[in-house]
């Protein structure tokens, strides 16, 4: 293309200008994307911690129930025995073992058949089977759990390891049911063996869909290599947590015949998991953290299988607990639930509902007391899979990648050799074969976070509207952005950048104020059956998870059904505890109409399913195909 000189310079000048303009815009685009990524992360994290705070609320409801059940003259659901019933084992050990051996596995079962004591053939068979999405037969699960329980009984609370023979130990954090991450770790780092020892630092189950497969694999390796495979207990290795966060459901779905017995055995196994591991007398590994009361020597003497971290906090049927048991419980909860914080001191972890926030001074004191140099813990999701704090004296290691959403974070593991200098290895599981661009990934994660946030807003709609209206004296439907942000922050109690999020949640009117009603527009309730008043629907929606847990506890044989009377009494107690006025007639009507086949029992899963919400925009998208 021939251009004469003057044209060429002006062309060059224009090109330069154009380039600069594009580059400017690009940088702005990237910065904005980064901001969206960050607040998405904040949203996920806040909601997760708020969920765990709800757990605290649940325990206060249990206390309330226990206080009030006597007033019901024994007409209430037999919740006390339900809650406190530790697994009563009428069978002796030998009889149990025989019983499992006698379970017949049909010819048509094509999965792995384990033989005890386990060998490498068995673990390889398990890994292959799970990669092919097969399920291990209930018989072998029971046998595996039984053997694991026997094995764990003779383990101490605190396990002392050494890195002699120049061995490197691999330390993994939370897996939360993500089999893909476990398989990825084994692929990158090799299977556990005498030359390749592993420590898994708790929270193997819940949230992810393959918790059963994970514990089967971990326990199998534990039995195969007892000296080179070590598992610490996490706060999710607890049957109440499992009720809330999905593991119980997963087991019951995969094991219709043997599920109940498997869950009972699991309760025992979890309570027998060791609490801490120490490497070379220098590195302490626990799931959550520590408190200013933590003492490893005391911890070694605790009868760990008797400590029920969740329930014991409010059970007070007997005369006041002996002080020692109280302290034991406290120490164990601290180990499983605490989080590090940046300020000095040790304060109660109200967010989680258990354990402490421990500062750098607490870490320093503990390390000094026991002549240690490093604390490795998990329990918190980190964007890069790991994070250091307290001047490098505390490492958080988290091994479930994409924990909140596809692309949200990496997973990581640590390798530690005799020189005790940690090396970090990161990874991220990717489900899609088509590589998503950064923009697409952020968009997906952000969409998911915002949807969850909107549900939170919806769940507290009445409270929010009442608070908005206090600022809206003239009833215009609008308040300023500051007022809107203030209300939302105080009602939801989530520490988020509300002003930055506002454009994604609520509409502005022409005069620059926020139309506060618009933040509920995207969500509509599903069709609740039976039909109830909007207030009741909102209450049911908000406490759906809690109710599910309570019903599951009442439903001892995990049949999915409870009696009408139990339903009625529970519901009555719950609403009176919440201070929600619901008259008897409404409850009776509701109970009667849910009992579809009029046989006196209620399928509570169906009932709760009715109280979910629909995101209008999702529906629209689906309709547009």
């Amino acid at each position, binding site marked *: 293309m021939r251009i004469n000189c003057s044209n060429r310079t002006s062309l060059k000048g224009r090109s330069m200008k*154009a380039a600069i303009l*594009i580059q400017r815009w690009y940088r702005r685009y990237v910065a904005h994307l980064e901001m969206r990524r960050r607040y998405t992360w904040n949203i996920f994290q806040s909601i997760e911690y708020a969920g765990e705070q709800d757990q605290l609320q649940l325990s206060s409801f249990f206390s309330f129930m226990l206080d009030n059940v006597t007033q019901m003259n024994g007409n209430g659901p037999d919740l006390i025995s339900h809650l406190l019933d530790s697994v009563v084992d009428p069978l002796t050990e030998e009889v149990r073992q025989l019983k499992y051996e006698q379970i017949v596995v049909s010819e048509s079962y094509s999965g792995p058949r384990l033989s005890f004591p386990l060998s490498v053939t068995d673990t390889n068979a398990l890994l292959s089977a799970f990669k092919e999405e097969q399920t291990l037969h209930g018989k072998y699960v029971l046998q595996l759990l039984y053997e694991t329980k026997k094995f764990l009984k003779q383990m101490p609370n605190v396990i002392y390891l050494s890195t002699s023979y120049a061995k490197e130990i691999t330390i993994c954090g939370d897996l939360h049911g993500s089999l893909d991450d476990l398989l990825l770790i084994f692929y990158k780092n090799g299977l556990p063996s005498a030359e390749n020892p592993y420590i898994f630092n708790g929270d193997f189950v819940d949230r992810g869909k393959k918790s059963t497969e994970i514990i089967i694999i971990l326990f199998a390796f534990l039995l195969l290599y007892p000296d080179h495979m070590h598992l610490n207990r996490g706060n999710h290795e607890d049957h109440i947590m499992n009720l809330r966060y999905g593991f119980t459901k997963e087991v019951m779905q995969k094991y219709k015949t043997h599920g109940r017995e498997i869950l009972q055995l699991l309760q025992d196994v979890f309570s027998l998991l060791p609490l801490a591991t120490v490497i070379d007398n220098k590195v302490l590994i626990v799931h959550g953290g520590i408190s200013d009361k933590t003492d490893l020597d005391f911890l070694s003497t605790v009868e760990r299988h008797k400590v029920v971290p969740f329930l014991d906090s409010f059970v007070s049927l007997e005369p006041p607990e002996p002080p020692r048991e109280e302290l034991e419980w406290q120490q164990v909860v601290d180990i499983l639930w605490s989080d590090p914080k940046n300020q000095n001191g040790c304060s109660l972890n109200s967010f989680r509902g258990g354990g402490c926030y421990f500062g750098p001074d607490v870490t320093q004191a503990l390390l000094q007391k026991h002549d240690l140099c490093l604390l490795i813990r998990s329990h918190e999701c980190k964007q890069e899979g790991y994070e250091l704090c307290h001047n490098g004296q505390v490492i958080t290691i988290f091994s479930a990648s994409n924990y909140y959403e596809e692309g949200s974070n990496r997973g990581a593991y640590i390798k530690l050799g005799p020189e005790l200098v940690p090396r970090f290895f990161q990874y991220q599981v990717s489900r899609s074969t088509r590589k998503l661009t950064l923009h697409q990934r952020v968009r997906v994660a952000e969409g998911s976070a915002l949807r969850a946030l909107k549900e939170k807003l919806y769940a507290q709609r009445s409270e929010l509207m009442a608070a908005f209206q206090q600022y809206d004296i003239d009833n215009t439907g609008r308040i300023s952005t500051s007022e809107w942000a203030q209300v939302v922050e105080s009602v939801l109690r989530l520490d988020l950048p509300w002003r930055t999020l506002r454009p994604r949640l609520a509409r502005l009117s022409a005069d620059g104020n926020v139309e506060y009603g618009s933040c509920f527009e995207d969500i509509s309730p599903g069709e609740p059956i039976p039909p109830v008043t909007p207030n009741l629907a909102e209450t049911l929606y908000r406490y759906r998870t809690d109710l599910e847990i309570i019903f599951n506890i009442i439903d001892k044989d995990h049949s999915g059904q409870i009696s009408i009377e139990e339903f009625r009494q529970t519901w009555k107690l719950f609403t009176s505890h919440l201070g929600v006025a619901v008259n008897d007639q409404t409850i009776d009507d509701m109970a009667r109409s849910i009992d579809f086949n009029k046989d006196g029992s209620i399928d509570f899963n169906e009932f709760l399913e009715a109280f979910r919400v629909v995101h209008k925009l999702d529906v629209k*998208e689906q309709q547009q195909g």
Partner: protein
Amino acid sequence: MAPKKKEEPKPAPAPKPPEPEPPKEPEFNPAEVKDAFQLFDRTPTNEMKITYAQCGDLIRALGQNPTNAEVMHVLGKPKAEEMQVKMLDFEQFLPIHQHICKAKDRGTFEDFVEGLRVFDKEGNGTVMGAELRHVLATLGEKMKEDEVEQLMAGQEDANGCINYEAFVKHIMAG
């Protein structure tokens, strides 16, 4: 319990899940700036400080689009090695942000399209992806290869051409 609202025409429903709103007039609301500032604060003790290097990003995240030169200028032309080390707290950041907000010549959608039209050799609404890459990497405030890649990901058609109006909408929406 719906509040009494004046009948106001609702904005047309977005065809997709709500896009981020297009850049508005600069707002001097310090509370809003503070929210974003906190998001970028990476100090381990939440001291409400950001590095000089983050300053440009934060200004851009807040809706402005200065050039790198403009950012460096308003920061007092720091040396390269200072960028990751020197910190700004919120009080120091506010006036810097306000200064950038006041600057004229922000560049509109039309300016942007004009700019790209320069490279539209055939005048048919498309530019050659390869040429654009070259320009962005060699002219002006040069972009690195991976930055260019990220920008252009998924934008080129089978012939390596980019429909630039769509491209501009894509950039401005982000």
